[in-house]
């Protein structure tokens, strides 16, 4: 269904103080069963539809349903909307909606002083407090002294709103998130219509559920309008985004769509072989629904089967892709070695999460860079690309496939939990704007000569000969092969040649990728060098520093292997290079080793993205 409509603003209520803001950050938090992700997504879509720039940060526990009301079970969704370009979900929250005491106390540290707190006052009974592990009520013990607090009987009012629909208490309480949404929509002057449409689309088959959610949403909205508790309303104007048609997209969705586009642009059928793992599974879910695009998804028995099935599919001529997260990438390591050895084109996507081992599976980290580059046996080079923000996943997926087929190599694509689950507006491209991806397969050979599967072109790529083609029969495999003929070879000199050749082929890609660009002064005091999901916080931080007149520039690496050819030169144009990473300094070690540049690390591994403030603080000593 396509909605192309102008933002519909509600009638402004003249009796209230109405404050125009450049931006606002709202976080819904509650139990993991309270529908906070849905509330956040709806606020996001609505804000995007009214023309704001939007960035989001869903934050949820690994447990699907942790014990109700406990701090372990708190789930949150943060939405940052603005009338200007924004790159992050916001450092601090302006308005916090807390559905219970556990959610309130765990999220309060992120609320800015003087910020708004809306709590469901019905959820602060002694029993609720006890479940949350609190001795006193934060509503009464002074915890909230420095905030604007609105205690709203969300549970009671929601039950009243849906009373005559004959729902049980449990079902009625499921609508509390819609009441909270309605209140936030009123407070920030958002239209309710997009969410009402969503309710009908989503729950249309269950009219009682649709109707109860509709009533709860409107009840929340009207509560804001009628009660005199709120002295102010806030408005955030449209942002000036580049012209075009927009939709709202998460990183995993952009990755899936980028894969679909790459398949279409290259004329290959997409085969996505994978094993479910957080936070990569949504790529599978999206692609599994797209079989009419010729997509074959294969939920394998394990990560190893996923990667090796993709090798089989690649041999057959499909666009083979496997997606995973860190632990899965470890399991795929041996298979990727085979892909490097057989020089078959395929993609491996790693949506990184906090490790090692199971670590914090729903939290973000960038600590798989070393694994992506080096986590295999033998000399096993492959190109590694990283997406910088949610919509960028669409472009990175296509670029990775372009390199894979052009150089006959597996390509590793890094994303992370922050990018994968985060979302932002995306200008919808026309397919005619996107470069086709050329794929060549040699035709039949009938001269009786044996086919030479390792004869190379000027880029050192070998031919992608497909089974079924007469005369091109050949055997690939993990054993070292003689160059050109592809015969099994244990000859040491040939192995040296092939090891060098595989390295040269990947290194040669540097000539085929754009040079590294910088935002900000071309030379100066400080360069902040980032990669992957730190893009937003760094881009925002340098803008903040520019406002103060600081000499600081930002370079963001999409290509981690090979590096852009001019990277060394770029680095030397600045007195200092600061490398913020959500790991213990993996890119920094590489840059130091490669360019002998005394780069400074700025690192954290809390499972959360950098805030803008943290990047600014990291840069300040050097400017």
């Amino acid at each position, binding site marked *: 269904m396509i*909605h192309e409509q102008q933002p519909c603003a509600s009638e402004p209520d003249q009796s209230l103080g109405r404050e125009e803001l450049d931006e606002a950050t709202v976080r819904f938090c509650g139990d993991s069963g309270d529908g906070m992700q849905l509330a956040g997504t709806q606020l996001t879509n609505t804000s995007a539809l009214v023309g704001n720039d939007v960035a989001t940060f869903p934050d949820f526990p690994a447990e699907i349903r942790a014990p109700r009301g406990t701090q372990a079970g708190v789930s949150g969704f943060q939405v940052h909307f603005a009338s200007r370009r924004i790159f992050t979900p916001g450092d601090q929250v302006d308005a916090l909606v807390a559905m219970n005491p556990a959610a309130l106390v765990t999220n309060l540290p992120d609320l800015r002083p003087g910020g708004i707190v809306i709590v469901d006052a019905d959820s602060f009974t002694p029993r609720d407090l006890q479940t949350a592990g609190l001795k006193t009520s934060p509503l009464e013990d002074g915890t909230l002294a420095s905030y604007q607090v609105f205690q709203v009987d969300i549970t009671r009012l929601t039950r009243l709103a849906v009373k005559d629909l004959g729902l049980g208490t449990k079902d009625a309480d499921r609508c509390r998130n819609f009441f909270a949404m309605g209140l936030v929509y009123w407070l920030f002057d958002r239209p309710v219509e997009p969410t009402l449409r969503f309710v009908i689309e989503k729950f249309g088959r269950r009219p009682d559920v649709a109707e109860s959610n509709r009533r709860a949403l409107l009840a929340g909205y009207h509560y804001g309008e009628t009660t005199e508790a709120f002295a102010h309303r806030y408005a955030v104007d449209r942002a000036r985004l580049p012209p075009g048609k927009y939709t709202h997209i998460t990183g995993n969705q952009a990755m899936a769509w980028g894969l679909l586009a790459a398949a279409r642009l290259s004329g290959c059928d997409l085969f996505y072989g994978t094993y479910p793992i957080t936070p990569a599974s949504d790529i599978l879910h999206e692609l599994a629904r797209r079989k009419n695009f010729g997509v074959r998804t294969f939920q394998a028995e394990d990560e190893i089967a996923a990667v090796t099935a993709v090798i089989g599919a690649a041999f057959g001529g499909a666009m083979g892709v496997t997606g995973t997260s860190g632990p899965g990438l470890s399991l795929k390591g041996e298979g990727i070695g085979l892909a490097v050895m057989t020089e078959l084109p395929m993609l491996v996507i790693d949506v990184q999460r906090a490790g090692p081992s199971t670590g914090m599976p729903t939290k973000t980290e960038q600590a798989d860079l070393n694994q992506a580059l080096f986590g295999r046996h033998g000399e096993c080079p492959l190109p590694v690309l990283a997406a910088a923000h949610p919509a960028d996943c669409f472009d990175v997926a296509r670029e990775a496939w372009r390199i894979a087929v052009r150089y006959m190599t597996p390509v590793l694509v890094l994303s992370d939990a922050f990018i994968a689950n985060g979302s932002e507006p995306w200008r919808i491209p026309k397919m005619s704007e996107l470069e086709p991806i050329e794929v060549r397969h040699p035709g039949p050979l009938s001269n009786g000569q044996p086919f030479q599967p390792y004869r190379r072109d000027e880029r050192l790529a070998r031919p992608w000969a497909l089974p079924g083609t*007469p005369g091109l029969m050949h055997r690939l495999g993990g054993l070292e092969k003689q160059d050109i003929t592809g015969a099994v070879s244990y000859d040491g000199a040939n192995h040296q040649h092939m090891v060098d050749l595989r390295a040269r082929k990947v290194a040669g890609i540097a000539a085929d990728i754009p040079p590294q660009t910088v935002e900000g002064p071309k030379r100066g005091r400080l360069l902040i060098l980032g990669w992957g999901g730190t893009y937003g916080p760094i881009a925002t931080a340098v803008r903040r520093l520019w406002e103060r007149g600081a000499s600081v520039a930002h370079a963001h690496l999409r290509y981690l292997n090979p590096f852009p050819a001019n990277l060394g030169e770029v680095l030397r144009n600045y007195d200092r290079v600061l490398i913020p990473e959500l790991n213990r300094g993996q890119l920094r070690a590489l840059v130091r080793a490669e360019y002998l540049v005394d780069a400074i690390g700025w690192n954290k591994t809390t499972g959360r993205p950098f805030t803008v403030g943290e990047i600014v603080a990291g840069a300040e000593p050097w400017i």
Partner: protein
Amino acid sequence: MSADLPAPAKLTPADYASAQDVRWCPGCGDYAILAQMKKVLANLGIPKEKLVFISGIGCSSRFPYYLDTYGIHSIHGRAPAVATGLKAVRPDLSVWVITGDGDGLSIGGNHLLHCIRRNLDINIVLFNNRIYGLTKGQYSPTSPLGQVTKSTPMGAIDNPLHILSVAIGCEATFVARTVDVHVQHLSMCLQRAAEHRGTSFVEVYQNCVVFNDGAFEYATDKQLRSEHTLELEHGKPLVFGKNRDKGIRLNGLEPEVVALGNGVTEKDLLVHDEKAPQPSLAYLLSRMHYPDFPEPIGVFRAVDRPKYDELLNAQVAAAMAKQGPGDLEALFSSGDTWVVE
């Protein structure tokens, strides 16, 4: 195939040989399997370019190098997964997995189970020599209890896996067992496997002359084998012995060996039914082991069940028929959209 190419001449077994020198130990059972495979392929007339042999690691897994077809010598245990990906996207190809007892059942056990249960239309040939040959003589998951090897100097203490019981447990649609030196029988089993639609699983008793010579002597020795093996034939009673004077009778739920005569006739014997919808009979047969029983060889089970590759491609076709071929621009605009002027 391009129209201007000459019609292919009928292929001989020799046409399927690659230029690579065969490097198994002299006397290895693998030679017989390779020879029979080439014969069967020629017999079936499958064009070389339509064949893909996929293997893992081990002596058996060198097999693809010796055939002038497409092939992948993959990594240890993973051949069924490689084959799954290939067959899923290329249902037009004849895909064969060549594996061994270590490759298929130890490191690759998981893939084998899932490949069989999915019933892809591929053929799996497992060379069982009850030993690790390529790594020079450690015990394998099919080595009998007590077997002394380099890694079990005091004898193996883990209970062996019985391959066909595993395959039947995964509800394989085609299960057969044959013996390397019994070439006609071997050839028959390979041919039946190739003709079956769905996953065909063939266990070949294969002698490792270096590390486990004679492991299957009871089943290969010309004097002994008719006493110690039983050739299964669909619809026929289970009779065995040099003089065909013994049979298998069901006693409750257990098989028992009976001598024919003295009032016991073939009518009293269990009758083989490879098409039985339930795998119970095939399983019972797979539990008959030397020396208590003659070991059945031949086709244990051959039934029809939907094939994974067929179902997968049918879903793609159904989605295209229902939703129309994918339109990316429409997909990108399928959520809420807005226009910035």
